[in-house]
Structure formats: C-alpha cells, structure tokens
C-alpha cells in the first residue's frame, strides 16, 4: 500500500488527464510502485495499481510486461545496465561488460549471491557520445573505464554497509 504522500502523488498524476482517462496514469504509477515496492512489480503490486486506477488487472499485466524498465522479478540492489548497441560497442562496451562479469563473478542477467548487484545488457540509452556507459538507478554513468567500474562497485558496497 502506498503512503498517504504517495497516494496524493497518484491523485496529482490522475489530475493531469481529462475526466475518465485515469488509465493514462498507468506508466507513471507503475514507476512509482516499482520504486516503492522493492524494485520490481509483483502480481500483488500490479493488482493494487489496477484497483487504484479502477482498471482490470489484465490491463496492468499486459502493459507492465511490454516495457523493459518494469521488472517482473526481483533484482539486485544495484542494477548495472550496460549499453551494448552499435555506438557503445564501437567505444568498447564489450570490454566493460567482460570486466564487470569477472569482477562480480556473474553472467549477464545474473545477480550476485549477496543480492547486491545485477548485471544486465541494454540497448541504446541515448548517451552514445559519452560511451561506454551504463544506467545505475536514476542516473547514467558515462565514459566508463575499468577503474571507474571499480569505483562504482566500491561506492555501492559502501552504501550497503
């Protein structure tokens, strides 16, 4: 269940659309729910969102599964989403992915045993000029080098302690 504050946010989002078009709030509210409820969307979470927007659960499932940013299962605390599309590849993203794999001892799509890190490869994030790069939470980490990756890993570990 959302807090009072988040419920107000939901109301504010719904107010952006004409009367009766509250379904338009689905993507923003799913983002909010994913942030609030552990970084992924469980069936309960999606049912809850459906009830908030007065739409059927299936309308939520079919949308949630369409968009790659919605996680349908739990992910690590820190998700490294490394871009490997053309422009990043030209700038050495494969090396960065290999480095992270070795460093964290996981493959793409896997999570470290302590549940701290997940490694994913993603398609172009609109940072091609600052490649190689990855998304980490809300922000982009650009011009990646092995040293920078080390720093980022340490930074995440420090946050966990």
């Amino acid at each position, binding site marked *: 269940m959302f807090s009072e504050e988040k419920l107000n946010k939901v109301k504010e989002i719904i107010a952006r659309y004409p009367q009766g078009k509250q379904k*338009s709030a689905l993507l923003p509210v799913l983002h909010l729910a994913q942030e609030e409820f552990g970084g992924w969307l469980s069936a309960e979470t999606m049912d809850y969102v459906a009830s908030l927007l007065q739409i059927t659960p299936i309308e939520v499932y079919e949308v949630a599964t369409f968009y790659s940013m919605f996680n349908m299962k739990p992910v690590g605390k820190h998700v490294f989403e490394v871009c*490997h599309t053309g422009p990043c590849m030209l700038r050495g993203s494969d090396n960065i992915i290999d480095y992270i794999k070795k460093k964290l001892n996981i493959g793409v799509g896997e999570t470290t045993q302590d549940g701290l890190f997940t490694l994913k490869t993603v398609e172009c994030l*609109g940072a091609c000029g600052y490649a190689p790069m990855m998304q980490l939470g809300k922000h982009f980490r650009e011009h990646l080098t092995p040293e920078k990756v080390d720093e980022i890993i340490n930074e995440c570990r420090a946050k966990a302690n």
Partner: protein
Amino acid sequence: MGRKLLFDKAHIENIRYYDVYRANGGYDSAEKALKSMTPELVLEEVKKSGLRGRGGAGFPTGLKWSFIAKPEGVPRYLVCNADESEPGTFKDRYLMEFLPHLLIEGLLISSYTLGANSCYIYIRGEYAWIPDILEEAIADAKKNGWLGKNIQGSGFDLEIYVQRGAGAYICGEETALIESLEGKRGNPRIKPPFPAVKGLWDCPTVVNNVETLATVVPILRIGGEEYAKYGIGKSTGTKLISACGNINKPGVYEIEMNISVEEFIYSEEYCGGIANGKRLKACIPGGSSVPILPANLLLKTAKGEPRMMTYESLSDGGFATGTMLGSGGFIVLDEDQCIVKNTLTFARFYHHESCGQCSPCREGTGWMERVLKNIEKGKGKMSDIDLLWDIQRKIEGNTICPLGDAAAWPVAAAIRHFRDEFEWHVLNPEESQVRNFGLAHYADPLEIAAPAAV
C-alpha cells in the same frame, strides 16, 4: 564559427534557470506571439521558415500543423516527442537538460498556434532525472505567468505535463506514443486516421519532436523568411547533430545546414577528426536506421560532388549510393571496426524493440539477428548473405509502422556496400575471430562509379 539559433545562448551560465533565460531574451518570442500575432500568423511564419520535422522524417512542420482538425467543442493536443531512442541520437536530451525553457517556450508558442490547452512531453523512461529538470522549469514558467490560465493577459490557457515512458523504442513512433500515453502497450496504430484527426483520446493531436518545437522560438524571433535564409535550398535553418563513435570530440553540435560532411567530421569546430589517428571507414549519419555509407561515398556523392549536411545532399543517389539525414544521430566508424558486428548490434536492437504486431517484423528481425550472429561468429555460409538480403526485402514495406523498414535498411546497406566483408567472414571463419577486415578500398580516392541500383 557556424551561426547558431538554438545554442546561441547555451554558453551562458545558468541559462537553464528561468531568471537567466528571461534576462537573455527568453520568452520574447512567446510574448510577441501571444500579444501581437494571431495563431494563423504564427503558422504563416512557421510555413515560411521551411522548418522540417527534426524527429527523423523531415516532414514540413507548418504543413503538418495546418492538417489539424478543428471540430467544435473537441479539445486538441500537442504532444512533444522526447522518446529519443534511435541509436546514435542524444540531441533532445541536451536541449531538455540544458535549455529546458527554450523547449517550454517553443511548446507555448506551438500550443497557441494549434489551439491546444494541454501539452504532454513524452520522455523516454531511462532519462529518469530529466523530468525533474523539466518540471522545475514548468513550475517557474508558471510562477512567472507563462503557463496556466490567461497567459500574459492573452486569454490563452496552457498546462504542460511530463510523462515518462518505460523502455520501448517503438513508443517514439507517434501512434505508439499516443497508445502509451493512454496507458497501453506501445502498439502502433494503423493509419489513417492520422493523429491530426484522431489522436490522443481520439482527439486531434499533433506530435512533434523536441528539437522541432524548440526551433519555433528562433523562427519567431528572427522571422520565418530570415530563418529560411539559413541553410541550403529546402534544408533551411540549423540542425542539431549528435556525433558519436570513433571521433575525437563526440557531442551535440548545432550546424547550419550548409557545411560539408567532411568539414563536420574533420574540423576542430565539430568532431575534430577520427580518434587515435585512424582513418575513416564508414558512417551512419542519421541514426541507426539510415543506410551506412563507406567513406568514399560519404564524403562525395556518386556524381563526385562534395556531400553536404543537408536532407537533399545526404540522400543524393537514393539508397544505391546515398543515405539520409534522419534524426541527426551521426555514428562514425574507424578503420578497425567490423561492419558485420556493427550491423548485428542494430539487428539485435530492432528485434528487441519490435512490438510484435506484424509477422514480417516480429519474425524477420529475429531471423536477421540469428543469421548475422552466425556470420559474425564465423559460422556463416555464403548463402546466408543472400538469405539476409531476402529477409530484409520481405520486411521492407510490409509492416504497419516504419520500424520494419528501419530494421531492414541497415542490413541492406551493409550488404550493398560491404558485401566483401561479409564474404570474408564466411571464408575466413578463424581469422575473422581474431582480427577485423580493415579498411579495404572504402577510403580509396574518390573514383566512384555508381553501383547498379539493387
């Protein structure tokens, strides 16, 4: 220095904040429009400017606006397409991050012209920090009377809302975007009806790119006629180019559409040449979906004329020897890069991003990815190259939306211009795993006979 119309004030510190933007002439264009011009007059200026959509297709903006239906009592909407997901493209991000008020001012003038009282900015979900910047700017504009009710006493009302996508390239296609904005899967609609008649919530809607809408501001500032004097022919004005790949200075540049491709790549003002002293092999000048060209055809057209950074010059020669300006995502490959690998990443991208509605796109993109992967890994056969050609031919033109074409073109162009490199992969399965094909003849002095159109 090339003349700037969008970035002319980008160097001013804190220009992203309202006070600084306003103190430097910001909102003057909006003031002029609201206080001294009718919507029809603004539309005339935009038509005169020759502005063409900056999202990729290059459709004349004024003409597009003139199509909007105006049934009595039905609201109209302006939707700003900030989905920016075409590989190689990152220009709109720059505008929104650093010049948010320029965009808001553009949205205000455009909404006024179209008679839209609500405007939605649909921004790709991964740009997760930018909505905060935009919302702060919207709040400041509102505080200063540029949004809300009865703006500057004009009687015109406008609200702007920011909506985040959630990771789907296809939502950049305007009808998929509208579906997504309605809280649905991003499945493109069959056209007609066009959004100008039946768009968001079945109301008349105009969808324009971020850069297109921001450009309305300088057009009103200097006038449509003056704007049209920038650039060459039908490529009027300036264009943002996001340059990336193996160049010395990747970044977002505003160019006047009158410089050559060669100047853009090699001059210090722009890309600063190829990185690490390497030679230019190939370039995809307009985002991943436009045809790749080898260096020789990139710098000069098949007729031997210098290739210019304009819509017309880049497409000179059609797909046989030309390409497109597209979204301005300018991707440069140096001599060490592998065309097969590069093409594979794009095929994988389009496969990943297909919405799955049409079978040629859904099945064809996956098939192309698999075949390319085999060739890249040294497991391909000669017949695979022809197979790839056949698959892309079967996708092109046979789908609901242009994503199918966008997936087919990069593969077609790679085979058209770099077939020997594909063949080399097949014939040298082991060597191709340890080194790349190299430059071959692509950068040879420019003695090009136009290849037969295929």
